[in-house]
């Protein structure tokens, strides 16, 4: 269970949002919406423990995530808005490395619809294919998925495939938080608009 209470986030000199609280149980999806620069990515980075909140707490399974960040991160997959790929490696290389790095079980299928191009170096792939390669991170059994703009650059089959992956993960008891500018039709999905938590014209200094 992920519990966020009274979270506030700074970016530069300004306060992005404050007073943000929510709770997500197993099998729930949260869709973050809000205009550009409102702090969706910043919230995801806070939730992944990469940055510290200005105030407030993030709890995972009843424990503050900063108590033992390394252990918390083992339940976590963070997909950055830009696919974290090396241009000289092919998708198969990435899958192979990530399996070892993140401790995925052996023999998990890494089918993200790349077909024949899965042994081509990333620099030869299109942006949609790169996006699909980054979904190889989602092959493990880690519970919490934080996906930053995962639908960008995907074709309609790609969107379909990702929605299926998310639904499958949800049914397996996973928790998914994602940002996207397209409307999503998913069961058990809450939409959170960050606009309600923004303090306009509020500048700390």
């Amino acid at each position: 269970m992920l519990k966020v209470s009274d979270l506030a986030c700074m970016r530069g000199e300004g306060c992005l949002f404050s007073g943000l609280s929510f709770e997500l149980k197993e099998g729930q999806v949260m869709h973050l919406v809000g205009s550009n620069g409102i702090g969706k990515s910043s919230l995801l980075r806070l939730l992944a423990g990469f940055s510290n909140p200005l105030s407030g707490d993030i709890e995972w399974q009843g424990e503050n995530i900063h108590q033992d960040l390394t252990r918390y991160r083992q339940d976590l997959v963070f997909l950055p808005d830009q696919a974290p790929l090396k241009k000289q490696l092919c998708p198969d290389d990435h899958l192979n490395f990530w399996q070892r790095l993140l401790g995925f079980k052996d023999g998990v299928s890494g089918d993200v619809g790349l077909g024949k191009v899965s042994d081509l170096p990333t620099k030869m792939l299109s942006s949609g294919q790169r996006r699909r390669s980054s979904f190889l991170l989602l092959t493990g059994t880690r519970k919490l998925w934080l996906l930053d703009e995962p639908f960008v650059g995907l074709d309609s089959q790609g969107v379909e495939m990702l929605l299926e992956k998310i639904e499958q993960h949800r049914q397996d008891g996973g928790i998914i938080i994602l940002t996207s500018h397209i409307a999503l039709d998913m069961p058990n999905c809450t939409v959170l608009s960050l606009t309600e938590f923004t303090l306009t014209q509020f500048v700390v200094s």
Partner: protein
Amino acid sequence: MTIFWAIIRHELKLTARQPGDLLLIVSFFLLTTSLFPLAVGAEPNLLARIAPGIIWVTALLSVLLSLPRLWEPDYNDGSIEILMLSALPLELIVLAKVLVHWLLTALPLALLTPLVAVMFQLDIQALPLMVGSLLLGVAALSLLGSIGAALALGARSGTVLVALISLPLFIPILIFGVSIADMALMSLPSEGAFLILAALTLFALPVGILGTAWALRLAVSN
């Protein structure tokens, strides 16, 4: 431990698929050292006298040249965040990456040193100490330089910043590294200088690892 080796194998694979950076360091070392006999004149005694200093300074500059490529690619493409999701503490991830950096700079430089030594007519007896001091000293340079490389992440003129942060830390290692070969050339005992270099490298191990991990956490937090 499997994760540690997985990172090392991954880094070696990255270099094998794109050996350009490695070739740059190797050719920089060879070309720069070969300029000195042309510039100062081919007088054997003089060349043999200044050889340890020139080899060491050029090796130091080669390391400096390679440092911006240590963390910047991972930072720019988001791989650093993925590395941080692993069960391995960040300090050990840093150790794995620095180990590979050392392997891919110190080893080529150590292999090329005999060749350069011939060019400078360096006394063959000083050669093992020269190579040994380079292998040891470059480890310290990699460790300390890694802090500078991580601190410069996200800065606009990162390359210059890496040099400015790292050079002051490199000076003690340069001084004792050169004095090992110098003493051997003058037939003086060089154990003392060698032990001091070893102590500096041992000191650089925790400082480099903890400092880099701290700088990396700082870099991803904004």
